[in-house]
């Protein structure tokens, strides 16, 4: 346990000791701010239109439903670009600088290294999300949003990002080159993102017998669809299990990848 902690601490230090953390957090909050402004603008206009037309009915605009939920949903797009920058270095850098030899010859297991690195990257990502929380808190000063759906949405974001991080670490374990790792990670993220687009054409491709099953599988694998319920304020074990098992599987493959590299030399 202390090994995992030491490893995670080292990773966090590496992020904040180099420009990576500041660039990533800066870029992310800048883009998040643009999204925030656009959606807020739209939200305010909607509110004004409603107030002017039909003498303000009993219904009013729900801040959670019309503002925060779409905002966080859109923010997941940003992760596509930002998370590869966090994960690209995890293994690639150790391999390039030869420090992998230090880690693998120290009395610390591969799994401890892996989990430590994952927690380090996840903390970095959490720090990034924490900054965006400031934007959301501003809304509390001018309206009365529900905090619970916000909490579940952030939990969802954390899990969602965790999946990407585990995939990103896997890709990083394939190469010594951080740029290659980042590019490949981005492509893999994108594929996971749009996997449900393929779902709708599955019947056409695979015929009526296999098609619907493949469609269902692809829909299930779609990492974005599982996020919807978290955004609505629902914690469904179905989605929780999906994310947790996705992360575990990603980390498992990473462990295998590191191990196989040992054998191949």
């Amino acid at each position, binding site marked *: 346990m*202390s*090994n995992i902690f*030491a*490893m995670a601490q*080292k990773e966090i*230090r*590496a992020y904040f*000791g*180099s420009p990576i953390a500041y660039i990533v957090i800066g870029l992310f909050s800048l883009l998040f701010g643009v999204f925030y402004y656009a959606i807020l603008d739209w939200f305010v206009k909607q509110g004004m239109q409603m107030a002017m037309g039909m003498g303000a009915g009993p219904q009013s605009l729900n801040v959670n439903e019309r503002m925060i939920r779409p905002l966080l949903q859109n923010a997941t797009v940003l992760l596509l670009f930002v998370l590869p920058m966090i994960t690209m270095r995890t293994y690639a850098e150790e391999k390039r*600088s*030869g*420090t*992998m*030899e*230090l*880690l*693998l*010859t*120290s*009395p*610390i*297991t591969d799994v401890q290294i892996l989990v430590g690195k994952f927690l380090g990257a996840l903390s970095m990502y959490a720090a990034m999300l924490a900054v965006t929380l400031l934007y959301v808190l501003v809304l509390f000063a001018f309206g009365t949003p529900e905090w619970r759906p916000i909490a579940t949405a952030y939990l969802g974001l954390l899990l969602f990002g965790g999946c990407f991080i585990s995939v990103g670490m896997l890709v990083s374990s394939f190469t010594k080159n951080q740029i290659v790792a980042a590019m490949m990670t981005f492509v893999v993220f994108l594929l996971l993102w749009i996997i449900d687009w393929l779902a709708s054409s599955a019947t056409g491709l695979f015929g009526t017998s296999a098609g619907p099953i493949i469609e269902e599988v692809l829909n299930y694998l779609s990492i974005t669809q599982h996020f919807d319920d978290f955004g609505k304020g629902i914690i469904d074990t179905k989605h929780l299990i999906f994310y947790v098992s996705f992360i575990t599987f990603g980390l498992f493959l990473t462990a295998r990848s590191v191990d196989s590299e*040992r*054998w*191949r*030399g």
Partner: protein
Amino acid sequence: MIEVQHLTKRYGQVMAVNDVSFRVERGEILGFLGPNGAGKTTTMRVITGYMPPTQGKVVVAGFDVFDQPVEAKRRTGYLPETPPLYPDMTVREYLTFVAKIKGVQAGERHARVAAVMKKIWIGDMADRQCGKLSKGYRQRVGLAQAILHNPDVLVLDEPTAGLDPKQIIETRQLIKELAGTHTIILSTHILPEVAQTCQRVVIITKGKVVAVDTPDNLTHRLRGAETMYVLVDAADVDATSALQAVPGVTRIGTSDRHGSAVGYEVETSRGQDIRRDLAAAVVSKGWGLLELRPLRMSLEEIFLQVTTDEGDDDKLKTAATVEEVAQ
């Protein structure tokens, strides 16, 4: 302390290490000698548990490296060819991190890091980033990292490569000092280094062990006969016949000429010291004896002999005898 038994490592079709066996006793410094690509680094990587062997096993301090890796690694310090440093960390941060993952207890960490920095003379660089250190200091920090958890066994892959002459001497001195409390394997392709620091030498080429012995024995035994070099000032008289008359001499050759003095290479059968007789023979003729010394094969020559002529059966046999003698 370290036992390597029939170690074989294959990378796909390439045989990097082929059936290598040797032992290192407690407190000993073993030199691991071989040309580049001979399998030194691979062997060391298996010993340190970085990679598993294809066949065979390695036991370090009583623990099988493959079956009980954590226990074995706890007792091993490793300095790879390039020191494994994190460029963004300061030396102190780096060593503290290494102390953590090497299992140094939290209470002792601070003192241990300070002690090692003092021992390796890197205290003045404690707060400098590793990435900004000179080559010599990197190497030292690498060494500090290896001895941090006070391991029984130290594996050093070319510890003096890329250092300047002064640093090389300092590093060798340091390694000798460490030998009392640690068992050391060190690899190199610099031969004087082996002669100066190691008690025993393993010569490896193309993945196979070709010789195991002390540096002294190697220089002696690899030569069938012993040769004396005699520089005689005989005023242009040929001294060959006079030297030939000395009992024990088997062959004589002229090697070089310095003005009126002529150098001879006098071969004798092994184990006979004919220096006194040679000197007496020269002096009794009234010639000047300017030089008399045994010609020994330098380690370089041995090394070349053992590692390059593997087609030559005689040479291989010689190497094999050396190995038998060593055992």
